[in-house]
């Protein structure tokens, strides 16, 4: 197992390197550079601009620029935002990330608490009305675009029924303790469900099909033949084996959640990373865009690494791979 983990780790390092190359290439291909605004400004002497380009290293060959950039980001400097003048990218990301983490955690909680048991129940009661209902839910969860679901939720629950706030993260500043927590939670319900909808459907279908698959295997028959109780068969043998492939799914979940967060945060005016990214896109703020891309890609990479290691720990058969 340690050999496997080590080997997996050795793949991680070149991937990390390639990710930085890709982000750098995209940043280079992007139109404009930090001085574009001044090039277009007739009152600025072109020679001064040229001097500043030289000073900033913008005239260096790409590999040199890449190495400089790499040494900057390894110290945590992602550059200055063009749109939010006077603020650095890392500062902006740090200010918005917590909101997205709350949102993602809440939505992941819904996904696992609803998706997995529903899939389990559906597999146990295969071909019953409950199973069909869950299947229909699964189809709808995948067919309803999250922004359309969000629009309907806002229309019905915020404006017709007035149950949940249509936007934002808190209703008033200054709340403390349990009130602040409940207020936050109240604002998280609709974005959280919207973000978790498709994943819940996927986890449900996945759990169901994995359970059915495991239930058909010999060791389950053996367990039953030994006279093991149905509860034990279900939880100790079936579920534990059925959940193993879900780990891989979880490894990619962060990326999926972030893609979803862009749309969800846009509908609910939720000040998180997704909205920050969209603001960057709308204003062609490339340092910001690339900074977020880099952070997210690295996070996904680490997530995959952890998922693979967890997989090896949970399922010893992987050793022979």
């Amino acid at each position, binding site marked *: 197992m340690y050999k496997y983990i080590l080997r997996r780790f050795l793949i991680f390092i070149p991937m990390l390197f390639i990710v930085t190359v890709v982000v750098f290439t995209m940043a280079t291909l992007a139109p404009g550079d930090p001085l574009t605004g001044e090039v277009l400004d007739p009152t600025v002497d072109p020679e001064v601009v040229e001097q500043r380009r030289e000073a900033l290293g913008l005239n260096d060959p790409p590999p040199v620029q890449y190495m400089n950039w790499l040494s900057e980001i390894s110290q945590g400097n992602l550059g200055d935002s063009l749109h939010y003048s006077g603020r650095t990218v890392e500062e902006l990301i740090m200010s918005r990330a917590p909101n997205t983490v709350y949102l993602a955690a809440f939505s992941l909680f819904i996904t696992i608490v609803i998706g997995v048991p529903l899939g389990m129940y559906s597999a146990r009661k295969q071909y019953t009305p409950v199973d069909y209902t869950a299947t229909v839910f699964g189809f*709808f969860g995948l067919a309803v675009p999250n922004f359309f679901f969000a629009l309907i939720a806002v229309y019905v629950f915020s404006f017709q029924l007035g149950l949940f706030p249509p936007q934002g993260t808190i209703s008033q500043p200054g709340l403390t303790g349990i009130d602040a927590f409940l207020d936050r939670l109240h604002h998280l319900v609709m974005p959280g469900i919207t973000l978790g909808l498709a994943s819940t459907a996927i986890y449900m279908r996945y759990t169901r099909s994995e359970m059915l698959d495991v239930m058909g295997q010999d060791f389950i028959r053996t367990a039953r033949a030994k006279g093991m109780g149905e509860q034990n068969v279900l939880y100790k043998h079936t579920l534990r084996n059925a959940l193993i492939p879900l780990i891989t799914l979880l490894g990619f979940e962060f990326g999926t959640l972030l893609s979803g967060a862009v749309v969800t945060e846009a509908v609910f005016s939720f000040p998180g990373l997704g909205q920050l990214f969209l603001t960057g896109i709308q204003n062609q703020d490339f340092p910001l865009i690339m900074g977020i891309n880099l952070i997210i890609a690295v996070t996904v990479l680490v997530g995959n690494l952890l998922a693979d290691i967890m997989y090896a720990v949970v399922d010893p058969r992987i050793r022979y791979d």
Partner: protein
Amino acid sequence: MADKHTDKQQNVSTTQQPEPSESKQKKNDSPTKLILKRFVRNKLALAGIITLLIIITVSFSAPLLTDHDPTRTDMLNVNAEPSDEHLLGTNPSGQDNFARLLYGGQISIQIGFYITLIVTVIGVVLGSLSGYYGGRVDSLIMRVTDLFLIFPFLLLVLTVVTILEDTSLLIFVVTLGLIVWPNITRILRGSYLSLREQEYVLSARAIGASDFRIMRKHLIPNAIGPIIVNATVVMAQMIILESGLSFLGFGIPDPTPTWGKMLEEARNLGVLTQRPFEWFPPGIMIVLTVLSINFIGDGLRDAFDPKSRSRR
């Protein structure tokens, strides 16, 4: 359930090379006919195909159903309420919403179809190279797909669309195709990997068939099930993706209507709360289209590969 493994084996060989006894039993039905029979028996799939055909027919006979030009703005008649003249009212530019719904359907469906076409071709070619040759070719292609999958999909699409600046229909479709291919390539590679080990491939190789011929004559025809099923999955995803990008304001440029662009208007609170007739119909159209395509895909999956029935 108990005999699942033997079941699997039999069914796999049925779909790939029907045994003579099986064919005789079914009155010499060809594999294609068997697949069709199984497909038609699936009620959801049939409902899906009928719904999809209706949506396509209605969208593409738009000129017969409305006299309005979906792109013509009418400043004297903006934000009209639904009436006989404008069935779903007009939008803030005075364009007729009903005409936009019909013509928008044409564009949304076509975008989904063409992206799927590009992605499937890339997936089939790279997937068969990767699965058939294995080794270095395989690792190279798989590492590239890994790389693509690390970047969250929507973030990557938005970044590339912004870098390109120009998003005409053609560039939009090609760009998305070039970003979406890794998933399907990985899935098809898996199919080819197992097909490569089949005896008929070995025998073809023994007679001296070239690699290209083996791929073209043996691998691709036998993988046609997964190819078509995954194409339906991609098409459903792409219709949702296009509408999502348009909703965020990064779709194809105006004045071409799409369902997603109609939904974009609901980002305005006034439209969202007061004019549901403007944003609800395109949303429902997307849901219906995607649902039908998924039902068809599921029916095809069962029809091509009956063992998957229990796994649905």
